[in-house]
């Protein structure tokens, strides 16, 4: 029995992936929905209470490709070291122009930086490029479609959330997953 216990411990230790630390604290509201977020191929859009939007995407194969594509689009080049660092950054919120500097930092330094969000204005809309390129990169790398998950803070204002949804709808993305905490479903009498 003890052998088995150790076997299981080892198994769970190796398979557990700790939730990656996020750049901002996002306190999600709760809902009764019991659908679970798929494990992979998820593009996360974090919206914090200060109306900032952050981008998160995790994939070993598609991420370097994504950085290349974005770099080409904005005329920014990244070094090999920066590309490697990008693989470890689960979420970030800086304009592309500042991304290089962010990637040069150590993990500790990065935590201290106050990231101001990715621009979503109509003049400088970088978030849509990140989403579209991530979709393309994922398709190219592992040929799987991606899901869009919106993780908004309970205090985030609807205007920002609506704007993000609008931006994605303009590109014909109409399915969203709103990340929420679970709460018990009340019994409804009819």
């Amino acid at each position, binding site marked *: 029995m003890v052998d088995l216990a150790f076997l299981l411990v080892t198994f769970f230790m190796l398979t557990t992936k700790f939730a990656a630390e996020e750049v901002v604290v996002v306190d999600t509201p709760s809902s009764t929905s019991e659908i679970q*977020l798929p494990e992979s191929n998820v593009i996360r859009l974090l919206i914090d209470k200060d109306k900032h939007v952050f981008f998160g995407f995790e994939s070993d194969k598609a991420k370097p490709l994504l950085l290349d594509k974005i770099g080409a689009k904005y005329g920014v080049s990244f070094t090999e070291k920066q590309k490697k660092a990008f693989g470890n950054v689960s979420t970030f919120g800086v304009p592309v122009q500042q991304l290089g500097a962010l990637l040069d930092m150590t993990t500790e330094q990065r935590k201290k930086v106050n990231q101001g969000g990715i621009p979503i204005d109509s003049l400088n809309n970088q978030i849509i490029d990140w989403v579209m390129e991530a979709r393309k990169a994922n398709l190219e790398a592992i040929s799987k479609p991606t899901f869009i998950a919106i993780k908004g803070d309970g205090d985030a204002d609807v205007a920002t959330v609506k704007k993000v949804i609008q931006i994605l709808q303009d590109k014909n993305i109409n399915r969203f997953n709103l990340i929420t905490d679970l709460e018990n479903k009340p019994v409804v009498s009819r």
Partner: protein
Amino acid sequence: MAEIQQNSGGGGKGGKKRAKKMSTRIDMTPMVDLAFLLLTFFILTASFNKPNVMQLTMPVKEKDNKDPTEIKSSDAFTIVMSENDKLYYYEGLLAEDVKPELKVSDYSADGIRKVLLARQRQNPKTVVLIKPDDKSNYKNMVDILDEMNITNQSKYALVDVSKADLEFIKNSGL
């Protein structure tokens, strides 16, 4: 857990000092305790870190959308979400000459949920128009979408709040 060490018998007087015979078995209890503790921890974290999601499907936007879907005024039920966790609702559609009765409610179980259920009993074809005001927060939006799930309201839409709605609320003095 600690075992009582048996006093080696016959130690007493005289006799050569003999090396104590150590048992070859070691007490594994603490280690096993730890193993199970870790096991429980990993099992729990493995299944709990998956977040829950609420699916939201927006209608496909058509480029030349001249006349969006019209709904009958008798089927319509409008909810306007306002600041401070307040919401307004009225039955029917707002028009120049028709001013429906505006009521105030909140997101609690006795609030909008009861109203929605009553409305559904009255008219099962109800279409709920959810109009989030810019002053409401995201939690309100999730709450109201959740109410739709709870009450099994199948037809609902997120619509932008119109100027007429805001005027209407302002003039009502609620």
